[in-house]
């Protein structure tokens, strides 16, 4: 009996890690690295993680988790609460609806998918901020942020796949 309880706790803890890791990435994205100009183009780390888990382990990244992650991002970055929560939920829905297509595909296809999703997210964010300010906002740093995110995606994806194989392997 005791063993099964521990076993279940163990499985539960492991299954919480995709959500936990994504929250860690939200915080990691805010660490002041003191590199000139970097904070403007800091990569969209939480989006990468949400994309990754939604494709590979959607049952471990429910919509509620995506919502909470977006809310945390809003609170810490200083955007109106709900903006990123909504944007992430839209991205989540898009990825989930196309999931059948992505499963089992080679990495370049997954990468291309991320390029499309991140591009869409960037445009929605830009649109929302522009609407709030009633003005066409300078989107250049947004564009560079997008490029940096694309460049870093393979690295993060590799790390998350490693995590998946080491921690979530048994189920």
């Amino acid at each position, binding site marked *: 009996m005791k063993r099964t309880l521990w076993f279940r706790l163990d499985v539960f803890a492991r299954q919480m890690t995709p959500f936990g890791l994504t929250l860690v990435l939200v*915080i*990691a*994205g*805010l*660490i*002041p*690295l*003191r*590199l*000139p*100009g*970097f*904070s*403007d*183009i*800091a*990569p969209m*780390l939480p989006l990468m993680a949400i994309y990754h888990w939604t494709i590979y382990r959607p049952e471990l990244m*429910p*919509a*509620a988790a*995506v*919502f909470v992650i*977006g*809310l*945390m991002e809003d*609170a*810490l*970055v*200083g*955007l*109106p*609460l*709900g*903006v990123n*929560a*909504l944007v992430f*939920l*839209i991205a989540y*829905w898009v990825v989930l609806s196309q999931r059948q297509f992505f499963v089992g595909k080679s990495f370049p296809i997954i990468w291309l998918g991320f390029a499309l999703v991140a591009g869409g997210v*960037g445009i929605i*964010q*830009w649109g929302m*901020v522009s609407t709030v*300010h009633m003005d066409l*906002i*300078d*989107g*250049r*740093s*947004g564009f*560079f*942020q997008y490029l940096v995110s694309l460049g870093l995606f393979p690295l993060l994806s590799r790390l998350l796949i490693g995590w998946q194989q080491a921690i979530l392997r048994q189920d």
Partner: protein
Amino acid sequence: MKERSRPFHRVAQPIKGAAHRFAYLGLVIGAFALMMLGKADVVLMEKVRGQLTDSLVPIMDVLSRPAAAVANIVRQVEELAHLHGENTRLQEENTRLLHWQAMARKLDSENGALRGLLNFIPDDEISFVSGRVIADSGGAFVRSLLLNAGARDGVRKGQAVTTGEGLVGRVADVGARSSRVLLLSDLNSRIPVVVESTRTRAVLAGNNRKAPQLIHLPPSAEVSVGDRIATSGHGGAFPPGLPVGVVSSVGESGIAVTPFVEPDALEYVRVVDFGLRGILPSTKGLRAPARGDRAAGR
């Protein structure tokens, strides 16, 4: 999941699907509702945001330390390489500053004597709170910093944030243990300033780029590249005379100002309490605007 019996599975699956869809829809509506609520009840939302941020401050405080240490080492190595040149530069600067010091002493005594003659009312006492930068908003559309000092340390909304070099921004949100600094380049940043040489008033508006712009200049105003910009103290939120930046370009697209402070490399900043209660925190108190007016009306 797999050990469950088939009939149960067949019934449960569609219900589960529907529940998921409703949950998703509910969350989307929730996100919209939060945004609306943020517009309607600003005070409540600020409190929620403050508490969310406060809860993560200890983690961010710890995480930002190694990053700062690494950045320091890199800087020290860089400095080592330029030691000789830096020394010559500093010696030259020192001679120049000694000259300025002598001049400042002379002006100070002269100023004191003239104030005595005029019965001048000095500005309020200034007090500081120093805070460490624990987060740097990573995003393309927001320019802000998080500090590890908050309401319990005496930080209030609307206060000016400075370094020795000049103005960094203003306090936008305050939690108990943390506060958010809106940088000059943020889209929401509007600072009343003057052109130091001509005393022309203007507003420095953030535009999501490195160099914010001067707006609301009088039509006859003449501004040229290299003019120094300082806070004007109008509105009573900021004290007058804090250095802000220099005009870096004047053109068709507007007048761009390069701030003195490079916000990327900041580790410690000063939140300055000048005793002014201007437009920002409360417009209810009658005493507050009166004090602000005095500072502005000089």
